[in-house]
C-alpha cells in the first residue's frame, strides 16, 4: 500500500498539519488510514470523532464524517452517533489527557457497555496542546510543566485498566511499530464490540524536551529500545519492567455488544 492509496482520505487543503516537527501524531494518522484502506471501508460511512488536544486535531485532516468535540468527551459523542446510526463505523481519537484524565470515565463506561466503537488513545505521556503539563499517563518522577520537581502521581497502566472495564479488544503499541499499529487498528475496527488501542507516541516539544529524551527521532528510537511484548513481559519482575513499554494484544474476546443487545429489545417491543 503506498502513500497514494491513503492520500485520497486527506483534506489536503488543511495541510501541512499543525503538529510540531517530529510529533508522532502524524504517524498514527497515516497508520489509521492504511487500516481503513485495507479494510476497504466506505468513506461515507466512516466517522472519526476526536476530543481536544493536539491529537484531537486529527479529525480535521480526514475526509470522512468528522467531529472535533469537547475535551474528554469524544467517546460520549461517539456513543450517541453510533447508537443513532449503527451502520456507521465510528473511530474515536483521544489524547492521554483527553481520554484518561477528564475523559477517563467515558472510557471505562464505553468499555463496560462494550459498545461497538474503536478508540485510539494517543499516549504521548503529556498534555501537548496546553504546554506540557503531566497527564495520568506520565510516568512517576518524570518532569512536566506542572511537575517541576518530578511527577508524584502514579500513572495508570491503561490498557489493562480498559480490559478490566470490559472491552472486547485491547492492544498497546508504539509509533515505531507501524505494522502492528495498522494491524491492531484493523482488528479493532473489525471487532464487534469496544476496541481500545493505546499508542505510545512522541511529543518532542514537551515530553521529549522536559525529560531530555530529545527530538522525534530519538523518541521513536526510545520506543523501539524500550518495548517488550505482552507475552514476554508476563515472566518479568516489576523491576525488570520498570521503564519498559509492554506492547501487544491484551484482550481479544467475543462478547455481547451493546447495540445488538438493545436491538433485541426493539425487535421484541417495536409495534409501530
Amino acid at each position, binding site marked *: 500500500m503506498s502513500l497514494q492509496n491513503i492520500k485520497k482520505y486527506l483534506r489536503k487543503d488543511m495541510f501541512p498539519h499543525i503538529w510540531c516537527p517530529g*510529533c508522532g501524531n502524524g504517524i498514527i*494518522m497515516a497508520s489509521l488510514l492504511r487500516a481503513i484502506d485495507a479494510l476497504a471501508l466506505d468513506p461515507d460511512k466512516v466517522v472519526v470523532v476526536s476530543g481536544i488536544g493536539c491529537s484531537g486535531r486529527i479529525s480535521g485532516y480526514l475526509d470522512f464524517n468528522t467531529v472535533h468535540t469537547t475535551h474528554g468527551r469524544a467517546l460520549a459523542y461517539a456513543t450517541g452517533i453510533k447508537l443513532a446510526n449503527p451502520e456507521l463505523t465510528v473511530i474515536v481519537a483521544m489524547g492521554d489527557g483527553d481520554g484518561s484524565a477528564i475523559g477517563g470515565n467515558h472510557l471505562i463506561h464505553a468499555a463496560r457497555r462494550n459498545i461497538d466503537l474503536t478508540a485510539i488513545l494517543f499516549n504521548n505521556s503529556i498534555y501537548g496542546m496546553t504546554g506540557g503539563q503531566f497527564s495520568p499517563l506520565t510516568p512517576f518522577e518524570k518532569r512536566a510543566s506542572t511537575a517541576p520537581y518530578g511527577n508524584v502521581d502514579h500513572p495508570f497502566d491503561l490498557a489493562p485498566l480498559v480490559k478490566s472495564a470490559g472491552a472486547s479488544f485491547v492492544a498497546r503499541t508504539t509509533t515505531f511499530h507501524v505494522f502492528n499499529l495498522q494491524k491492531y487498528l484493523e482488528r479493532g475496527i473489525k471487532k464487534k464490540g469496544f476496541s481500545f488501542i493505546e499508542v505510545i507516541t512522541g511529543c518532542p516539544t514537551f515530553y521529549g524536551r522536559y525529560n531530555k529524551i530529545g527530538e522525534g527521532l530519538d523518541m521513536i528510537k526510545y520506543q523501539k529500545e524500550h518495548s517488550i511484548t505482552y507475552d514476554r513481559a508476563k515472566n518479568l519482575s516489576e523491576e525488570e519492567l520498570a521503564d519498559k513499554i509492554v506492547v501487544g494484544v491484551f484482550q481479544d474476546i467475543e462478547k455481547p455488544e451493546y447495540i445488538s443487545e438493545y436491538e433485541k429489545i426493539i425487535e421484541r417491543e417495536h409495534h409501530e
Partner: protein
Amino acid sequence: MALKAKAKVDHIDINTSWCKGCGICIGMCPTQVLEFDERFKARVAHLEKCINCKLCELLCPELAVSVEEAENE
C-alpha cells in the same frame, strides 16, 4: 503487505512543502538513503541503497514521503 517480495524502488517522492525536517526518515532508514537538504528538509541522497523497506514512508509524521516502486501499481 510489507512482507511480500520487495519490488525495486523507482523513485522516492518527498513533498517538501509538507516536510518539517524532523529527520525521522533520515534517521530510521536502515541504509542511509536520505539526508537533509540546505533548508533542513529531507532529500534522497543514495537511492541505489534503498531496500524498499518503506520505513521512511510509514514513519514520516507529515505523510510527505512516498516510496514508488518500479513495477506494477
